[in-house]
């Protein structure tokens, strides 16, 4: 995101007072990136299911392919109209919208898994190289942003 300052005034920070100077440690997801690489959304299948493009610039190495494939797989599982989804919707309608209060829908579970997956990939792989994957929901699934901090 071009000029939005990614540092909210009340960021999660730890204060380490050293020599009467307060240092703020800012979490990597809140830092301002130097560069951001966007993987655009792939509409070629035309069935309304969200997926991200498999073509990426040569700057990125091979591990990105695995991440993007994982994300695409989870999104397809979430958005495919299966009988489970139909059942969820019908029950929600019949119980006057009280069903989702008690039972998590299939879509919510899949999205939770997606967010966990991205978080894990970030923690295990990308943060140590100074890269962070942004939350695709906040970008309305229009692109996947790899922010580079160096």
């Amino acid at each position, binding site marked *: 995101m*071009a000029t939005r300052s990614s540092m909210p005034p009340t960021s999660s920070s730890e204060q380490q007072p050293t020599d009467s100077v307060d240092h703020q440690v800012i979490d990597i997801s809140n830092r301002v990136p130097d560069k951001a*690489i966007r993987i655009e959304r792939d509409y070629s299948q035309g069935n309304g299911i969200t997926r991200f493009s498999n073509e990426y610039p040569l700057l990125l190495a091979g591990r990105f392919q695995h991440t993007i494939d994982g994300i695409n797989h989870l999104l397809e599982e979430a958005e495919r109209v299966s009988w489970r989804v139909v059942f969820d*919707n019908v029950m929600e309608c019949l119980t006057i919208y009280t069903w989702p209060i008690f039972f998590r829908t299939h879509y*919510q579970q899949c999205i939770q898994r997606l967010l966990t997956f991205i978080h894990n990939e970030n923690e295990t792989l990308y943060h140590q190289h100074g890269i962070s994957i942004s939350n695709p929901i906040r970008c309305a699934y229009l692109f996947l942003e790899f922010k580079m901090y160096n």
Partner: protein
Amino acid sequence: MQSANSPSSLLLPSPSSRQQLQLQLQQQRRRNSHCESIPSPDPRSYFVASMHQQHMINEESFENYNLNHNNGQQEHLPLPSSPPPRAIRVTTKRNYQLFPGRFLTSRAYWAFFLSLVVLIAPSVLFIVFVCPWLWLHIHPAIPILFAYLFVLALASMLKTSWTDPGILPRNLDIPPLSPNNDTTSDDMGVPYESIPPPKDVLIKGEMIRLKYCDTCRLYRPPRASHCRQCNNCVENEDHHCIWLNNCVGKRNYRPFFIFIVTSVTLCLYVVAFSLVHLIRLYYDNNRSFGIALSKAPVSLLLAILCFILVIPVGGLTSYHCFLVIRGVTTHEQLRSAVAMRPFEHQLFDMGNPFVNMFHVLCRPQPKSYLARRKHAEEWYELPYRQQQQQQPLPQQQAEPSSKAS
């Protein structure tokens, strides 16, 4: 695309004239935002909701659809004061939120109250005057079923009205500022924002050009539409319903459909059982219409009123059934009548009408893209961007994020 009146595209050259210009810009902005804040000045939008009325509203928005892209009147975001406001306040000036972050609706709520009254009043009259008789004389299941349908209709109405229809978050594709030279600045030597390059996507083998929305500053995905009343881009926007005071888009289409179907069912139910009431009284009282009427005047009133209501609501329902079977939204259906470019929606058509219906009505509801309950990030308007880039303050680093995709 860069209209000279658009204040945010002007950047301020020097400190002394900057303040004067800023004052002028602020005045102009206030004037512009004042004009924009008048809800739907078009008197046509105040008519009774019918198919024709929707047609008029959508025609108006369609005429401006192509213009909007070029002369986007920019809605300026207020500077967040500390503590940072909830994200929903900053993103849209035209939407109201109740219980901040949980519900989201639009302006002009008088129409919403009117439609609430139109739903509740005949139902309450029916329950009070006709249902006791039905319970005792016909069958107790009838009032129970009516009550269930009524609650479902009311809940669907509130859900449609208060759910985020799929608003796209703003400022995802801000074009970088062009360098300050003669060819790309206006008379005062102030540089423009560079024109965002056109973007094409491949859908099932066809190249479709994505439109860039100036107000929301993003490339609108296929099938998304910008709503003038809400001043937002909405995904798969069907139409803006003033009676529900909200756009109907991807996320709330299903409750909308349920609402109109249950409304029609309720109307027909009331008509049928009011007539049953009257006819039974007519036969029980030696075929005397006068006595039957005197015993149950409300039934006749209800029957006539609901019969009149069935016509617009039934028309709307059948129109939407037709749209669902075709798998298109209202905007797309109306625009395809005035053919101007390859039809995006045809590329998304599944072929089989039942499959279309299945997909439109049963697809899962995505999460809202606006994190309404979280706090907004800091966002500074364009005049301050220039400041940022010229004098990088210690807190904000002007980051030229280069897109390479």
